[in-house]
């Protein structure tokens, strides 16, 4: 049909234009000097391939030289997830990657094609890139989150802490209003003791984890529900994983991921 043909021609022309003068969407730099095609796994079904320089390569797809923009949140989400997937595919294929942020695009310049520009960049930054890749080769990032059951821990403290035990006894013998006020005192005490315990546990676990991993980064804890309280949220760079369990605590590991948190990119 005439329309189909025109569509095809349009797509082909666009592809040709992009390959000459458009931009290169950059996913990551990989630990390999191979020139490979990874398939049409890129954003909007673009063909992802590598542009090598010596023993490193940039993993890219051809695109217009403007950043990807959309007002639709769902679209952006889809792109970001796609970006992650390509990164993971590259990680699986090449073993080690230096990830780049979403929407990093390298354009060509007046007399330099975008491919050339990428090669120039790899060449110029070679020592730095190589050093970083050497540092993370064979490593993965793991998320470690430690939770506790606040009720369980609270009960245990109430059972063992002298001051709290005495206060509990005292409350039993008091009248309504006074008992209420003393209960406030009890709650404050309990809260303070729990915070002390949380601090001790954090320091203990952190020290133990630090021994098993290359690097650990403390991240913010998130609010969970009442049964589970997040004590610690770490991003760790490791070769292997280890875990220990204690009653009333639970640990969640996520990973392995390519080491995003440990690669700062300008």
């Amino acid at each position, binding site marked *: 049909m005439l329309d189909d043909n025109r569509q095809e021609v349009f797509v082909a022309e666009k592809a040709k234009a992009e390959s000459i003068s458009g931009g290169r969407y950059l996913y990551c730099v990989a630990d390999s000097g191979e020139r490979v095609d990874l398939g049409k796994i890129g954003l909007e079904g673009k063909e992802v391939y590598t542009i090598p320089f010596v023993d490193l390569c940039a993993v890219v797809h051809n695109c217009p030289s403007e950043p990807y923009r959309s007002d639709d949140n769902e679209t*952006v989400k889809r792109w970001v997830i796609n970006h992650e997937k390509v990164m993971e595919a590259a990680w699986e294929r090449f073993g080690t990657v230096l990830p780049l*942020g*979403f929407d990093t695009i390298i354009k060509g310049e007046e007399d330099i094609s975008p491919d050339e520009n990428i090669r120039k960049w790899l060449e110029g930054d070679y020592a730095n890139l190589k050093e970083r890749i050497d540092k993370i080769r064979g490593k993965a990032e793991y998320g470690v989150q430690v939770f506790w059951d606040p009720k369980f821990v609270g009960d245990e403290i109430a059972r063992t802490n002298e001051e709290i035990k005495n206060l509990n006894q005292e409350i039993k013998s008091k009248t309504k209003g006074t008992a209420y006020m003393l209960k406030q005192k009890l709650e404050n005490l309990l809260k303070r003791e729990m915070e002390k315990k949380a601090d001790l546990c954090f320091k203990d676990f952190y020290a133990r984890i630090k021994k098993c991993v290359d690097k650990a980064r403390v991240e913010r804890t998130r609010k969970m529900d009442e049964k589970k309280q997040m004590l610690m949220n770490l991003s760790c760079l490791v070769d292997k994983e280890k875990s220990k369990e204690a009653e009333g605590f639970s640990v969640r590991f996520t990973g392995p991921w390519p080491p995003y948190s440990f690669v700062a990119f300008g």
Partner: protein
Amino acid sequence: MIDIDADNLKHGVLGLVIALVEIIRDALRIQAFKRMEGGSLREEEVERLGEALMDLDTAIEQIKEEQGVTQSVQSVREGLDNVVDEVLNTMINPERQREKANEKQVVEV
């Protein structure tokens, strides 16, 4: 788009009001407690204070139940907690906040 009608407007405003009442009650509790600990209260004063606060608690719970705003109130308080958290985090760790802001920018495009 938020659909506003007379009913859920009342809900929203009531939720906000009760949340504030609870926060003020919490502040009162802390003050009362400090007075008690400070030793400046006689025994019967502690008793009366405790009873008054208990009654306040009961009244608040009753209103929340009758008006069906328990969830609303919780949401408002959680929202306020998050705002305070953000402010504190920015003060304690400005570098981390800047990182997060940059990340957000890239994704929001």
